[in-house]
C-alpha cells in the first residue's frame, strides 16, 4: 500500500506541472495589458514600463513561467489587483466554505443514493425498484437553481423551518479556527452553534447533492445487480449469514469501485461548480469568489482560483485511486 501510494504521488508531478502550464498559458492568452489595467488610462509609457518591470512582465515568457512556478511552490498564489491582498491568505475561508458544503452534499448523496440503489436491487422489478429509479430520474433531471429556489420558498419562506441563506446566524459571529463551521462548533463544544450551522447548510447541501444522489443511485443499482449474480454472494448465502450482511458486506463492497469513481468525479464537480447554489444561498464559497473576480477582471485571482480548484480535483482523484487499492487488495498487485 505504501509503495502504491508513493507511485501514485510521483505520477502526480507531471499532472500538476501540465496543469500549471495550461492555467498560465490561458491567462496570458487573454487580450489586454495588465499594466494598463493597474495604472489606468492616463499612465505615461515610462510608468507602464516601470509597472511591467516590477511585475516581471518585461522578461521572456518562459522566465515568467518559471518565476510563477517558483512562487507557487512557495505557496504564493499572487496578489489580487482589486484588494491588493495576498490571494493565498484570502482564499482559505472561501475554500473551506465550499469544501464544507460539498462534503455535506456528497454525504447526503452517498447515504440516500446508495440506499436507494440497494432498495431497488433488493426487490428488482418490484414497485420499490421502479419507485427508487423514478426518484433517481427526477433527481438527475431537476435543475439545481429551480430546486434551490423551491427549497427556499417552501422551507424558508412558507414553513420557516430553515434559514434561506448564509452559513451562520449573524448574531453568532465568532473567531474561526478552521473556517469549517461544523468542525469549529465541535471544537468549541457549542451545540447551539452546531445546530445553527447544520440548519444553514442543509438546504444548499440538498440542492447540491440531488444530482450526485441520483447518479449514485443508478450506478449502485447496476453495479449491485451485477455483483448479486456472482458466485461468492451465493457462497455467502450458503453460509447462512443474514441478508443484511450479504448485501452490505459481500455485495456492496464489491460493487463499490464504480460507485466510488462516480463519487470522486461528482465531488470534484461540486467543489468547482457550486457557483449557482452558492449564489442562490449567498454561500461565501470559492465559486462566488471566482465569480466576483471575473466581474472585476481580477486576473491573478481568476488564475489562482482555477489553479486551486484544478489542484483539488486532481487530489480527489488521487484519493479515489488510493481508496480503490484500499477496497480491492488485487489492485496494488496488478500495477506492479
Amino acid at each position, binding site marked *: 500500500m505504501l509503495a502504491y501510494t508513493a507511485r501514485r504521488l510521483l505520477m502526480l508531478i507531471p499532472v500538476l506541472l501540465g496543469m500549471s502550464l495550461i492555467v498560465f498559458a490561458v491567462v496570458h492568452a487573454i487580450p489586454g495589458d495588465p499594466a494598463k489595467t493597474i495604472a489606468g488610462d492616463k499612465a505615461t509609457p515610462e510608468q507602464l514600463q516601470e509597472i511591467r518591470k516590477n511585475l516581471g512582465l518585461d522578461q521572456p515568457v518562459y522566465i515568467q513561467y518559471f518565476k510563477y512556478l517558483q512562487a507557487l511552490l512557495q505557496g504564493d498564489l499572487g496578489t489580487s489587483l482589486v484588494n491588493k491582498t495576498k490571494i493565498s491568505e484570502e482564499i482559505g475561508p472561501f475554500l473551506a466554505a465550499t469544501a464544507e458544503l460539498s462534503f455535506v452534499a456528497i454525504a447526503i448523496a452517498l447515504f440516500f443514493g446508495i440506499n436507494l440503489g440497494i432498495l431497488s436491487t433488493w426487490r428488482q422489478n418490484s414497485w420499490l425498484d421502479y419507485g427508487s429509479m423514478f426518484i433517481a430520474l427526477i433527481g438527475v433531471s431537476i435543475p439545481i437553481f429551480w430546486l434551490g429556489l423551491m427549497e427556499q420558498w417552501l422551507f424558508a419562506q412558507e414553513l420557516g423551518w430553515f434559514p434561506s441563506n448564509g452559513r451562520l446566524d449573524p448574531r453568532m459571529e465568532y473567531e474561526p479556527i478552521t473556517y469549517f463551521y461544523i468542525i469549529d462548533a465541535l471544537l468549541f463544544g457549542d451545540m447551539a452553534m452546531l445546530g445553527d450551522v447544520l440548519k444553514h447548510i442543509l438546504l444548499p447541501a440538498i440542492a447540491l447533492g440531488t444530482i450526485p444522489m441520483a447518479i449514485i443511485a443508478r450506478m449502485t443499482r447496476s453495479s449491485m445487480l451485477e455483483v448479486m449474480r456472482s458466485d*461468492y454472494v*451465493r*457462497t455467502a448465502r450458503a*453460509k*447462512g*449469514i443474514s441478508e443484511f*450482511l450479504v448485501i452490505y458486506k459481500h455485495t456492496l463492497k464489491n460493487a463499490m469501485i464504480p460507485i466510488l469513481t462516480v463519487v470522486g468525479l461528482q465531488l470534484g464537480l461540486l467543489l468547482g461548480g457550486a457557483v449557482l447554489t452558492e449564489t442562490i444561498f449567498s454561500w461565501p464559497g470559492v465559486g462566488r469568489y471566482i465569480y466576483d473576480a471575473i466581474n472585476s477582471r481580477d486576473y491573478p485571482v481568476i488564475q489562482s482560483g482555477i489553479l486551486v480548484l484544478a489542484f483539488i480535483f486532481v487530489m480527489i482523484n488521487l484519493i479515489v485511486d488510493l481508496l480503490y487499492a484500499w477496497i480491492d*487488495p488485487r489492485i496494488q498487485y496488478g500495477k506492479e
Partner: protein
Amino acid sequence: MTQPVLEIQHLKLHFFTDKGVVKAVDGLDLTIREGEIVGLVGESGCGKSVTSLAVMGLVPQPPGKIVDGSIRFQGTDLTKASQRELRQIRGKDMAMIFQEPMTSLNPLFTIGNQLIEAVRAHRSCSKAEARELAREMLEKVGIARKGVLDEYPHQLSGGMRQRVMIAMAMILNPRLLIADEPTTALDVTIQAQILELMQRLNEEFGTAILLITHDLGVVAEMCDRIVVMYAGQVVEETDRYRLFRQPRHPYTQGLLLSIPKLDEQKERLYAIPGQVPNPYQMPAGCRFAPRCTQVMDVCRQTVPPLAPVEQGHVSRCFLHQKEESHHGTD
C-alpha cells in the same frame, strides 16, 4: 439401516419464464443416510445442480418455484421452512461447496475473515476463538502454511481455494455436505487430492456427502450409492458395483459406454445419439425415448414409473419392468 439425513420426495421445481415453464426438476426422489456418500450423475442441464440449490434453499424465487413434493432434512420440511429457519440450517447443519473455486470466495475479504464469519453466523464465540477454529480447520484440509488466514483469495491457487471452501463448509461439522462438481475446474492431480480429502472428512466426521458430478470416474471412486438423472428425473439408482456391472437403464448404459477404456482400440468414442430434450417441450412418454436405442411403442406414450428391478436397484424403464413380470410368472 441408519437414519436418513435428507429425504427428497417427489420434488417438482419449475422455472416460470417468459418463454414458458421449465420443469427443471420433475418428480425427484432421493434419500441420503447418515455418513453416506451419494453420487448424483447426469449431463449438464439435467437438473442436478438445481436440485442441490433447492435443498439449500438458494434457488432464486421467482422465477423458480417448488410446485410439489418435500425436502425433509433431519425431520424438517425445508420447502415449508421460513427464510429465517433455512438460514439457521444453512452453513451449520448443511453446507455446500461449488464448482468454481476461483470465484466462490469473496475477493475483497481475507480467508480468515470469511472463515470466521462462517463460524460466528451460527455460534456465539469470540473472534479469537473462531480464528483458532479456522486455523485448526485449515490444517485439517491440508493447509498448514502459516499466514493463510490473513491472505486474500487471489493469493491462493485453485486447489488451495477449494480446500478453503471445504474448510469453510466443514467448520461447524455439518451433517450433510453438498458438493456441486467440486473438482471439475481443477487439474487432474489436484482433483484426486480434493476427492481424497472429502473421503477422509467423511470418515472422520461422519458427514454425509451428496456429490454432484458428470464424471463417472469420480463416482466410481467415491460413492456408496449412485443416482442417475436425466431431464429432471431420476432414471436409475443403485450401489456403485451394480451400476458399473449391470446398468439397467439404456441411458446409464450409454453413459458407461461413452467412457474411454485403456485396453480398447477404438476409432471413435461412443456417444449417445440425439440431444437432451428441449426443456420447454418435454417428450410425452419416457423422456429418453427419442434417443433410446431400445425404444418401444409404449415408451412414446406413457411415462415409465421408477420401479425396482431387484433389491436396492431401481430403474425408470419399461424394458426391465417387462422382464420383471416375466420373472414373476416363471
